[in-house]
């Protein structure tokens, strides 16, 4: 049984390797499509998110100062 399962496993490995051939290798297609324009979109989103988080921290700090009065 052990041998059989080992053989089966090796055969399956083979098919897995064969399955790679003839396919497109490039992955993460969503961001690579349309001339990678969505990378730029994601960049702008990162910048905006970062600024927003920073704004919230400033807001909290100012609130602390205001509440001290």
């Amino acid at each position, binding site marked *: 049984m052990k041998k059989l399962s080992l053989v089966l496993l090796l055969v399956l490995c083979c098919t897995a390797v064969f399955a790679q051939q003839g396919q497109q290798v490039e992955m993460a297609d969503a961001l690579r499509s349309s001339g990678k*324009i969505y*990378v730029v979109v994601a960049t*702008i989103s990162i*910048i905006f998110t970062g600024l927003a988080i920073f704004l919230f921290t400033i807001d909290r700090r*100012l609130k602390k*100062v205001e509440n001290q009065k």
Partner: protein
Amino acid sequence: MKFIYQTWWKVIAVLLVLSTFYTGLVFKAPRLPIIHETIRNLYFHVPMWMGMLTVFVVSVYFSIKYLQTGKEEHDLAAVECVNTGLLFYTLGLLTGMLWAKYTWGEFWSGDPKQNSAAIAFLLYCAYLVLRNSIDEEQKRAKISAIYNIFAFPIMIVLIFVLPRMTDSLHPGSGGNPAFGKYDLDNGMKVAFYPAMLGWSFIALWIATIRYRIRLVENKKNAIN
């Protein structure tokens, strides 16, 4: 000091950045292999570093000023500039990593530009750690001012000089043509220069707001 309370330059900064969303995304850009449309990151990723540089330069200026005059406000201005600079530093690193994933294949591939940027990031984090580790105010201000003045040229060398002398994949380094020489045609300058200027002033704006809050905090702590 009156300059930081005025509004006109903040409006100009917002308008400049706003214009780049149109000019940067719609106008024609050179067609390059691998890079494709991500060449437009030039208007969004690179200005982060410009903004960082602006506030760090201002920070060094106030550190020198502090050592000359010994006024506490100058020290506070220097810290808040570094805090703001680190925000833009982080944004620059993250956007750069994302871009690297889709052009170089990995978020972090140990490229000289990435590695030295990480080292310089730690250099500035150490500045904040150093400040927090000293309780006595004058000593803290003086030591951190001196540290800041020395950290700045090291940061410049790490980020802008050393990667250019080795084989870095980053545009503008190690034999890779910078966008400026061959690819930055006049069409790109229309979006690039306003972006650089606009984000610099936005960085400055954030730093001034943090400085003003810091001033109020400081005044309250002195009374109590």
